[in-house]
């Protein structure tokens, strides 16, 4: 940890609503009970030789390296390569390994495919299980009580709030990810993208498309990319 020898009493005349008011350092106040717990556990794991500080830092780097861009790359590959798509649906772990994506040993992954008849959406009502190794850190709303409780009761209303209104002829299938499996949605490839490269396709596959609260959209100006 860096040490500072200058004094931290910032005398200033800003109002509190002033956007230029100095911000408090994130570690300026007293540590929360969770921070104390994390620190104690981390120090014990290092002292007893279970983990090294380097291993912990590497794991943080690994988690930080995961983002929806990684999931989008996988989906774009599935859209363009039928053999890869088949493997992704039947044996997700090996398909991801073939793209050098290691999903770790904590959970299995499943890819669920949207079709013209079925639209899938993922939620975890018990906590907030999320395919972090493919999509990175979940959005705050995914962990909110409102999303977690309403998605199973009124999925169509929730989807409408995300701007996605589906006709009743399409089955809405909610996946409550309650156990050892993490779900990611394979959206339908939009019309008019036949000539697109994997990279161009990946650009329209957003995080929400892979949770199931959105579908990929081809806007007029994007099609010209």
């Amino acid at each position, binding site marked *: 940890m860096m040490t500072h020898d200058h004094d931290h009493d910032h005398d200033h005349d800003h109002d509190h609503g002033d956007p230029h008011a100095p911000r408090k350092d994130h570690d300026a106040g007293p540590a929360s009970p969770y921070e104390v717990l994390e620190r104690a556990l981390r120090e014990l794991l290092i002292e007893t030789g279970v983990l090294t500080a380097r291993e912990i830092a590497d794991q943080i780097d690994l988690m930080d390296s995961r983002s929806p861009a990684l999931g989008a790359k996988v989906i774009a590959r599935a859209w363009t390569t039928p053999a890869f798509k088949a493997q992704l649906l039947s044996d997700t772990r090996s398909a991801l390994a073939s793209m050098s994506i290691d999903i770790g*040993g*904590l959970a*299995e992954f499943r890819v669920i495919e949207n079709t013209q008849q079925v639209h899938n959406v993922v939620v975890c*009502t*018990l906590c907030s299980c999320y395919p972090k190794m493919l999509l990175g850190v979940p959005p705050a709303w995914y962990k909110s009580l409102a999303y977690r409780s309403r998605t*199973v*009761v*009124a*999925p*169509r*209303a929730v989807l409408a709030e995300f701007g996605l209104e589906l006709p*009743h*002829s*399409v*089955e*809405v*299938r*909610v*996946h*409550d*990810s*309650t*156990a*050892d*499996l993490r779900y990611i949605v394979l959206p339908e490839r939009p019309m008019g993208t036949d000539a697109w490269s994997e990279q161009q396709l990946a650009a329209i596959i957003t995080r929400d498309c892979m949770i199931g609260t959105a579908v990929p959209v081809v806007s007029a100006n994007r099609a010209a990319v």
Partner: protein
Amino acid sequence: MSAALTRITPEFSVGDRVVIRNCAALGHCRTPWYVRGKSGTIVEIHGAFRDPERLAYHRPGFPERVLYKVRLRQHDLWAEYQGGKDDNLDVDIYEPWLGAAAAAAKTGRKGR
């Protein structure tokens, strides 16, 4: 982690009608309240996984439990469901929480 189902024979098969047990667990479990007592259909057998009800208390989690994907009709789950008649909810449930739907129906008609 999942394991090949070499040691454990699943009690249910894909297509079986099942009832999710309606009981209060004394401690951690991964069966949401809103599906307890509801009927559905097995759509997938995920494999054998260490028992979360033991793992939660720092036990190794054995014996492993077979995990199923159970599909419930939204209109069976919620009386006032607003949506398509074919809308479904899939939920992953461990075998000890499942009973055969037929057997449950018989118990239900005991009084007749």
